[in-house]
C-alpha cells in the first residue's frame, strides 16, 4: 500500500494503523463506522500496546507535524503509527 493510497483512505474517512516490523510497517485500513472493524482495530491496538509494548502515536497533517502519544484506543484516531519498544544503543 503506497503513501498515496493511505492519504486517499484517510481523506475518505477511513482510519489507518501502521505497525513497524522487521519486514517494514504493516498497514491496516479500517472503517470507523463499521462496528466489527472498530472492534478488531481495538483488539489490535490493545495487543500492540499492552502485550507487545509498542508505543502508539496519532499523526496528522502532511508537513512533519509532531505525533501525539495514544495510550487509549480511539475510533476517530485517523492515522496511528506503532513504534516497537526502544532500547539504548
Amino acid at each position: 500500500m503506497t503513501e498515496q493510497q493511505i492519504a486517499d483512505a484517510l481523506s475518505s474517512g477511513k482510519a489507518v494503523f501502521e505497525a513497524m516490523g522487521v519486514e517494514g510497517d504493516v498497514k491496516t485500513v479500517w472503517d470507523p463506522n463499521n462496528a466489527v472493524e472498530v472492534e478488531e482495530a481495538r483488539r489490535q491496538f490493545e495487543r500492540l500496546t499492552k502485550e507487545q509494548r509498542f508505543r502508539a502515536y496519532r499523526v496528522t497533517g502532511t508537513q512533519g507535524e509532531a505525533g501525539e502519544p495514544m495510550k487509549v484506543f480511539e475510533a476517530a484516531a485517523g492515522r496511528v503509527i506503532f513504534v516497537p519498544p526502544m532500547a539504548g544503543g
Partner: protein
Amino acid sequence: MPTDNWTTGYATTSASTWQAWTSITSSATTSITASPWVHWASNYTASTTATYANTIAATNTTWSLWSSGVQTYRPAYVSPPPPETEEQRAARRERAAAYEAREQIRKAARRVAISKADALLESLLDDMQRAQLAQDSAFLLRSQSGKIYRLRKGRSGNVDEIDAEGRVVAVYCAHPALDVPDGDTVVAQKLMLEADEAAFLKIANRHTTYGRPPVNREALEALLHAP
C-alpha cells in the same frame, strides 16, 4: 619465608619440595630416582649407581622423546580426507544453490522493507526536512522541550543534540529493539523526541561527540526562524 621444606637441603631422608623437584636424589642414600624435572628434561632414567649418570636409557624422558621425534611419542598422523565423490560434489552444489536462493529471497524482502520504511519517513517530514534528508541523509527537528536535534539516517548513535551555534553537544543512541529498517528507526526517534522526549532520553545512551561535524548553518537558521 618458606620453611626448610621448600628450599634447603636434606636434614632427613625426606627431600624438600624444591629439591625433590629439581635434584636427582630423593634421599641421602645412594639410590638415584629422578625427580619430576629431571624426568621431564633429562635423557636418563634411574640408575643403580651412586652417582649421577647422564646415560641414555631404553625409556627416555618426556621432553627428550617429545623433541627428538621418537616414534613412540610422535603424534598420530592424520591422513587427509579422501577426495570428494561426484555425488558429494553434486550434493554440495545443491546445498550452495539452495542457500543462495534463500539469500536472494531474504535480500529482496529486505529491500521491500527498506523502501516501505523510507516512504513512511518521507511522509512524516516537512518540505525542508525532506530536502535536508535528500542532501545530507540527515534532517533537523525541534523537540518537545525546544531543543534542536539532528537525526541522521541510521540505527545507532545517529541522534545529535545541536546548540544554537550549530555545534554537536551530545550524541544519543536509542533504536527499536526489533531489526527494523533505518527509515523506521528514524521515524521512531522523531516521534519520541517530538512527543515523548523525556522517555527517549531516559532510554538512550549518551556517547562522545568527538568527530561529529557541525550542522549546516543555513539549515539551522531556517529551523530557528521557522514559524
